[in-house]
């Protein structure tokens, strides 16, 4: 158990807190911490993407609110918060209002599964990969809900596209997770990360490069990013499944989309790029002569920075793709994921199993 938890328990016992409170409060604190972290990351991410795309297209990007436009996303968020709640006439109210909630909350839940540092693992489960698969399917339901309940034909087509596309891409995505758990022999994310800790060559990207590529592409499809942003293809469907949502409801979809981008990138980093492990094989904080508690604290920060760096590089690649590629058509996306990605992912499982067998023999 992490050192923070031990300190926390020590403290709570000293002040004679009841047992249920100790347990409940710990989860509450980590929930608040992680949720705030997610919102902040998304806000930074949105601004970063705009600046980055502006850099690609030789523009300045947002530069009015705050220095170099650093407060732009916050201003946008405030504007969205104060917008009038517009309710179209022919909607299915219940489903219409459920959809924005349904898109954000599962993404938040998945966020809890990631081991941020060796000390901060908000939800450490022995089958977190399984949970990941299960929960990640829920946001797709939300897009379908939004498409069907809006009473708009563009939304309907967008929702249908999102659904077909998600089904076709989740299968290769999950097959890649199986190849990871074959390699690690575990479904616990923390132990998967710990198995990659010795050096950069321990990272699972090296035996499983094919799995990495398949996972990355299928993740792009799940995230609805270019070139697979068909459900909200602007030139065909105006805004796709969230055409009829405004104000905060729209913000939920928007935030959910960026949060999903971030979380899936963090997952790729965790599964294939060694997670929070330092690529150098040692931590700078280990070299310093400090009291154990400070050292542990610094190490955690260092690990967190490594994870964020790896995630950031993946996000850069995703945005780079967005800046340079046109959009595929629905038909071709489906053909691509059913005929190319899925068979390759199954083939990859065999390769990984043989690799694992050979390694245990030799």
């Amino acid at each position, binding site marked *: 158990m992490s050192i923070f938890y031990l300190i926390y328990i020590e403290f709570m016992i000293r002040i004679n807190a009841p047992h249920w409170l100790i347990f409940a409060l710990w989860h509450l604190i980590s929930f608040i911490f992680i949720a705030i972290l997610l919102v902040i990351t998304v806000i930074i991410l949105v601004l970063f993407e705009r600046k980055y795309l502006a850099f690609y297209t030789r523009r300045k990007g947002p530069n009015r609110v705050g220095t170099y436009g650093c407060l732009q996303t916050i201003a946008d968020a405030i504007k969205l918060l104060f917008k009038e709640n517009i309710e179209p006439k022919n909607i299915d109210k219940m489903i219409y209002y459920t959809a924005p909630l349904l898109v954000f909350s599962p993404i938040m839940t998945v966020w809890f599964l990631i081991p941020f540092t060796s000390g901060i693992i908000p939800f450490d489960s022995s089958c977190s990969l399984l949970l990941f698969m299960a929960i990640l399917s829920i946001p797709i339901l939300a897009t379908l809900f939004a498409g069907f309940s809006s009473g708009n034909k563009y939304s309907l*087509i967008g929702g249908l596209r999102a659904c077909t596309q998600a089904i076709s891409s989740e299968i290769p995505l999950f097959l890649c997770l199986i190849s990871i758990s074959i390699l690690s022999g575990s479904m616990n994310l923390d132990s998967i990360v710990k198995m990659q800790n010795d050096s950069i060559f321990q990272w699972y990207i090296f035996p499983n490069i094919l799995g990495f590529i398949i996972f990355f592409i299928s993740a792009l499809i799940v995230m609805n990013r*270019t070139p697979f942003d068909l459900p909200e293809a602007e030139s065909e469907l*105006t805004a796709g499944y969230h055409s009829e949502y405004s104000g905060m409801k729209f913000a939920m979809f928007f935030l959910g989309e960026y949060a999903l981008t971030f979380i899936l990138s963090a997952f790729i980093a965790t599964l294939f790029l060694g997670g929070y492990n330092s690529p150098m094989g040692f931590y700078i904080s280990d070299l310093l002569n400090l009291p154990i508690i400070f050292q542990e604290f610094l190490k955690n920060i260092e690990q967190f920075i490594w994870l964020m760096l790896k995630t950031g590089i993946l996000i850069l690649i995703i945005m780079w793709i967005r800046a340079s590629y046109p959009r595929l058509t*629905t038909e071709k996306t489906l053909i691509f994921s059913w005929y190319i990605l899925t068979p390759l992912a199954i083939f990859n499982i065999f390769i990984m199993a043989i690799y694992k067998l050979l390694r245990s023999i030799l």
Partner: protein
Amino acid sequence: MEVISQDRILDINIGPQHPSTHGVLRMVVSLCGETIININPIIGYLHRGLEKMAENRTYLQYLPIVDRIDYLSGFFCSYAYLNGIEKLLNITPSEKAKYIRTITMEMNRITSHLLWLGCFLMDLGASSPFFYAFIEREKIIDILEDLTGSRMMYNYYTLGGVKRDIDIDILNRIKEFSDHFETALKEYEDLIEGNPIFLSRTKNIGLINKETANQYSITGANLRASGIKKDLRKDSPYLIYNNIDFEVPVLNNEDSFSRFVIRIKEMRESKKIILQCYNWLINHIKDEEIKSNINFMHIKPEGKVISEVESPRGLLQCIIHADGTKKPYRIKWRTPSFYSVQLINNLAKNYKLPDLMSIFGSLDVIMPEVDR
């Protein structure tokens, strides 16, 4: 084809306010799944009655309105109109005026093609090429602004020539631009032409064969992409095009991709024409005569004339019936986009919805020209 029952068909209304209809075209699209069964294009949302307006105005008063027929290539419309009047009055513009008209029209052709390029790629979902195209377009528009005083609605030509003389500074800027333009074109080709997604979305899609092209009176780059070598600048040269060395690119593939390639090549040819005009103008910078001395206010032409010009979108005709009064009796504009819109049902039928944008975008339709 199998008959599809009515309850499986979804009618959706694309436009008149829609990101990819290039203005205010409305298309009622019948879909079965995502397959297009039928498209019914509905136009008229930008109808300004330009032909009726002509009957209430004198020839001079109508001149500034003419630019608005096609706001992306205003020079071509005003040339077609003025050329008609000049023919009726037997005025021949001076040689320098002809060169200035040619150089401005070719620059206008490049801006029009660049805007098309950006919008076409935007329709396909790529965002960056739009900005890259606009960076180059901005340079030309800045030059034209300094020359004519306006960025889009130039109103620069006048009877027997142009309103203001071109000076050495502007000529040097034109030269500078055309020297640099090749690198920009290379950049577009590198970014777009080799892109597998772009190829998969444009190759073998939206085929126009020769018979259909003739049947539907398609002209311009769309016609040349179907393998018919037809360019007014070569076939019946106007202005100074017979003194100029340029080629008319023709491709036989008939698809969206070849229409893209043709336009890129056309920009290259335009650049060549601009450079040749520059070389002539720089040697004749001292020539004074740029317009005729006839007072535009009081002309009373008589007769009828078909004045033609090869605009960026195809054959633009201005037909003038003059009855010897101050005002035109009847003016008819034959605009190329009007005929391209008709074709959309033939082209996009049985393709998927995303292909509609790739086909429609490649035709280079502009709505003010369709509705007039």
